[in-house]
């Protein structure tokens, strides 16, 4: 039996349902039927996303510690005040900002350049693409571990390469043990791992630009330089911005790679906010304090991402 075009979802559902249930369903409006289908998803969303968020906000106003059997007290905004006036927290914010800024900047520059080169047709194009994307297929824990060996001052390949080009003694510096080098050590590894991701998205953007636009530009005698700045960059920009958004959100949450590489040290120079938050919540067990910390980070990421998405939409509209 085929559906008649006029059949409503309720009719179709009723036909495929036992008669007793069908009679009940026929009495429901389309809107009610739609709600029945959507309700499980909404319930799941409320249970695993919204409820924990509300509960976290609630805990952020308490002195609750999940490892204690003592009475919980509401302490107002004291946790927020302590966090925002804690110089150590601001140092982790600075470390996170440094990591975010440099990883994204370097990855965008290298990623876009690689995409631009790969987009040109040459022999072995596909093979090179595969080789370049290999790092992002690895587990961050594995990457962190083997880069720890590469950075080892006595046997690490990285130090020998630097030594080869600079003449410095390989064991005279420690990428993950020195305050001035450790923040760059994590930037280098993240760039090595995730530049291919930016490249792939940029490549998709470049391949979406129709050839006839370049042909028209050539007819108008536009130089390759001018074509690049007036066609390639503007048309690939929404893709690039999307890649930046993804990497920005990911790197704000960065945890595994850095824990494997430096553990947040030396001192606290590579202790990013996510590492610091985990220590507060699950090592020191300051649950209320950590909840307030999480709320502050959530508002920060959500606010920045909203502003960025608006900017992205404006670029797409152009």
């Amino acid at each position, binding site marked *: 039996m085929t559906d008649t075009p006029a059949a409503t979802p309720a009719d179709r559902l009723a036909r495929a349902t036992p008669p007793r249930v069908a009679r009940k369903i026929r009495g429901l409006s389309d809107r009610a039927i739609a709600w029945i289908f959507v309700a499980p998803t909404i319930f799941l969303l409320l249970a695993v996303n919204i409820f924990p968020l509300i509960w976290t906000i609630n805990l952020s106003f308490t*002195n609750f510690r*999940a*490892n*204690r*059997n003592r009475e919980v007290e509401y302490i107002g905004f004291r946790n927020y005040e302590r966090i925002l006036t804690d110089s*150590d927290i601001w140092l982790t914010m600075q470390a996170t900002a440094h990591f975010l800024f440099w990883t994204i900047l370097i990855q965008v520059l290298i990623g876009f350049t690689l995409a631009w080169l790969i987009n040109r047709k040459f022999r072995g194009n596909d093979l090179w693409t595969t080789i370049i994307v290999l790092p992002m297929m690895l587990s961050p824990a594995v990457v962190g571990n083997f880069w720890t060996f590469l*950075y*080892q*001052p*006595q046997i*690490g390949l990285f130090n020998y390469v630097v030594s080869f080009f600079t003449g410095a003694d390989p*064991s*005279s510096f*420690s990428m*993950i*043990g*020195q*305050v001035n080098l450790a923040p760059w050590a994590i930037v280098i590894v993240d760039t090595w791992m995730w530049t291919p991701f930016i490249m792939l998205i940029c490549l998709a953007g470049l391949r979406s630009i129709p050839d006839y636009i370049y042909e028209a530009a050539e007819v108008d005698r536009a130089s390759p330089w001018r074509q690049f700045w007036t066609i390639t960059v503007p048309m690939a920009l929404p893709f690039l911005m999307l890649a930046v958004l993804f990497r920005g959100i990911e790197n704000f949450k960065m945890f595994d790679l850095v*824990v494997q590489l*430096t*553990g*947040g*040290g*030396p*001192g*606290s*120079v590579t202790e990013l906010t996510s590492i610091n938050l985990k*220590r507060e919540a*699950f*090592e*020191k*067990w*300051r649950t209320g304090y950590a909840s307030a910390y999480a709320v502050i980070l959530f508002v920060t990421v959500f606010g920045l991402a909203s502003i960025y998405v608006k900017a992205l939409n404006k670029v797409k509209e152009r």
Partner: protein
Amino acid sequence: MTRNALWAATALTALAAPAAMAEELTLCWAAWDPANALVELSKEFEAESGHTMRFEFVPWPNFADRMLNELNSRGQLCDLLIGDSQWIGGGAENGHYVKLNDFFDAEGISMDDFIPATVTGYAEWPKGTPNYWALPAFGDVVGWTYRKDWFERPELQAAFAEAYGRDLAVPQSLAELKDIAEFFQGREIDGTTVYGASIYTERGSEGVTMGVTNALYNFGFQYENPDAPYELEGYVNSPGAVAGLEFYKSLYDCCTPPGSSNWYMSESVDAYKSGQVAMQMNFAFIWPGVHADPNVGGDKSGYFPNPQGPAGHYAQLGGQGISVVSYSDSQDAALQYIKWFAQPDVQSKWWNLGGYSALRAVVEDPDFATSQPYAQTFLDSMAIVKDFWAEPAYAELLLAMQDRVHTYVIAGQGTAQEALDMLIEDWTETFEDEGKL
């Protein structure tokens, strides 16, 4: 019911009884050499009791994290837990451990039979009171291993005597230890560049704290005013404590292998066994492994207690007690294990297998000191132990110290005075939150 049926029922009940009583016990501990020895030892318990033993061993860097999460979530993974000495306060106050006083009284187990430092360190809470939450299971202490074969080389002895005006021998003080470490740093031995000493520098768990305290204690650091609990000012940051922290930094700067900025037990022992360093700081548990090592074992290595400093002679206590987890459904069987483990002959086997018994009958045996080349050093070290806070908020106190010490010693940021002053601020905040101040 016929007579035959009655006999059958009786026979079935008799057969089924031991099976019903036999339980599966899970013992949780760190993943390290002594744990393997305990697996071997526990086979006897399985044979005697009919219970089956399962083991959950977690590598040291994740041990506290994993096990404290397990306890805090009231998990039933572990029936028995060999938990770190500093967990005893939290284990007792948060209801994670079963109090053992009644059990000890009923079974005739006396804490007087164990090394006093291990009873205070591993079993008591509050400290100094006869409230027991664990049986001392594994005595451990930070000590030093050195390359005896290098120390005995005539050319090195001559060079050292010329440079320092004394013999190259086991250091009697921390200052002498630093001289020796300096002497070996960057020296060519058998065509290889070697370094002075490997010391604890790890940041993530407890490493750098377990290392630096061996200098701090001996220079005059105290956790609190002995007469006024939780009074920190002038004790944690006393001039001696500042000098102790500066000493540890100077030792790290002058005399450790490149890249040793995040080293704990395993990295330190690897450096020693691979012939990179002349001396290594490490817990005593590694000594049986060093002694048996084909490259550096036997007569090639010697052992000495942490040397004294200008203000005293102490060493950082390690080791653990064995507790029954209060969330376990097999508490009776778990207590049975502890009763079995406390027996002198089992403790003696424990020592022979590589476990450091804390039972006085074992360590005070006339033959004990000569039973292994490191036995006397173990005894000497256990006589000078001091431990970190064992408060319920121990993790918070520990992480604060990890941060402050690592920032000064390894990252070289700020001064020793600033690091200890900030540590007091952190600890004061914790004790205020705890309602202790």
